[in-house]
């Protein structure tokens, strides 16, 4: 049995040891900054460029958040439609799968043409929505379908109508599934917005992906790493927010389905 303090400190100590090893390797081997900057160089770059980088982080965060919210609402709505009609499910599900399996990089130019080169940010938003949409749809659909037979029969016994069944049984029952989908989706929304910005450019606003391209082109590798670190921090932050939300919403559930 691993002691709790050990499980907390072990990854932190490992991480710090790796950073130290990195710093020492770079300084002892004299590795040039444009190949592999030392952690202190990255920290310097982060402090020098913090204003630009923070603005870009906010832009990426904003697009990711919007994409995630739109994708989640749309996916839950469509999953509800699926639950109400088998015909709708049979008709729409293959289209959803097509969007899921088509690489976002491949459809980015098309979306960019459709929305106009001046609206690159809108194109990024659409692409991020496409990437983030499917996990919520699949999980919500699965959650609604997983309702226990006896519970469903109980609602039949009291002649519950469709809306009562949906709001008092199916959606609450599917909540853990929906939140699992949303946890995956929020990471994908970030990946989607970054990849879309790589492909579609950033227009007037510049997100973190654009900073990475810019730094790469100038061989400013410390800045590239700084942007990358902010991207990781943003991803972890979004995941933690979703985990917290899940914990709060599922407090009453306790995942014990009685």
């Amino acid at each position, binding site marked *: 049995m691993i002691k709790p303090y050990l499980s907390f400190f072990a990854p932190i100590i490992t991480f710090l040891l790796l950073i130290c090893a990195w710093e020492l390797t770079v300084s002892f081997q004299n590795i040039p900054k444009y190949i592999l900057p030392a952690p202190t160089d990255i920290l310097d770059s982060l402090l020098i460029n913090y204003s630009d980088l923070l603005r870009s982080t906010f832009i990426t965060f904003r697009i990711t958040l919007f994409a995630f919210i739109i994708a989640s609402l749309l996916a839950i709505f469509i999953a509800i439609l699926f639950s109400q009609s088998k015909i709708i499910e049979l008709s729409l599900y293959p289209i959803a799968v097509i969007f899921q399996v088509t690489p976002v990089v491949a459809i980015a130019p098309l979306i960019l043409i459709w929305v106009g080169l001046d609206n690159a940010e809108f194109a990024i938003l659409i692409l991020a929505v496409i990437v983030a949409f499917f996990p919520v749809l699949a999980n919500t659909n699965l959650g609604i379908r997983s309702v226990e037979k006896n519970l469903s*029969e109980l609602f039949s016994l009291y002649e519950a109508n469709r809306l009562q069944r949906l709001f*008092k049984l199916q959606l609450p029952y599917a909540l853990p599934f929906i939140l699992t989908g949303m946890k995956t989706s929020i990471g994908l929304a970030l990946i989607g917005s970054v990849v879309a910005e790589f492909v579609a450019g950033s227009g007037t606003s510049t997100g973190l992906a654009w900073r990475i391209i810019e730094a790469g082109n100038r061989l400013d590798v410390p800045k590239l790493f700084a942007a990358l670190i902010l991207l990781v921090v943003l991803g972890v932050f979004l995941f933690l927010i979703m985990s917290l939300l899940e914990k709060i919403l599922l407090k009453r559930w306790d995942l014990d389905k009685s």
Partner: protein
Amino acid sequence: MLKFNKIYKEYDTPILGPLSLNIKKNSFVSILGSSGAGKSTLLRLASNIIKPTSGSVEYLNNEKPNIGFVFQDPTLLPWRSVIDNVLLPAELTSENKKLSKQKAYFWLSKVGLEGKENSLPNQLSGGQKMRVSIARAMVQDCSLLLMDEPFAALDEVTRNKLEDDLLDIWEKNKLTVLFVTHSVTEAVYLAERVLVMSSSPGKILDDVVITEKRSRDDSQQSSEFFSTINYLTDILKKENNE
């Protein structure tokens, strides 16, 4: 109270019947039978949750009574408190809120769950969850109570206590109870009449009227009580061997 007219049910294969049966008002009927005998299907047909392939289910005066259903699992909504679970039938049938709440509190105290109204299902023991399930079934003044192996997963002490509480509820509220069980002793102890069902497809194999007085104390049980148990056990054994 309830009449099954040449009822027959099939899905891909025949499940039940043809079967005709009369259940008297205020009677307590246990249904015994091996797995796959269609006992649960019979209860679902009685509650109108499913429809028969042919035949019909008739209620007294052609009026569907208030039906309570207790499943093998407590079947509670885990995100709802105990009181909200008990209030569910009233919500679904848009019954008067204030009156339903009074009834819910009454039934929760009746099943010994006073003070647990705001607990969540996961904070209750197996026996307590089943009590919530019984309170929920009773909250709409049901006159027909259908129970599908409700005490099967409980330990013996809890089971005996709940059986006695159920008898008390049945006697005081003039209910008609259809009680599915695998336990011959439970069936004989609780019911006035025991139906034994055969399997594939389910039919009534025997219909035994119980006249003996109930007692938890073996020494006070009549020899008829044990001979009825032996008789029913023999029928089930024979049926399982065939």
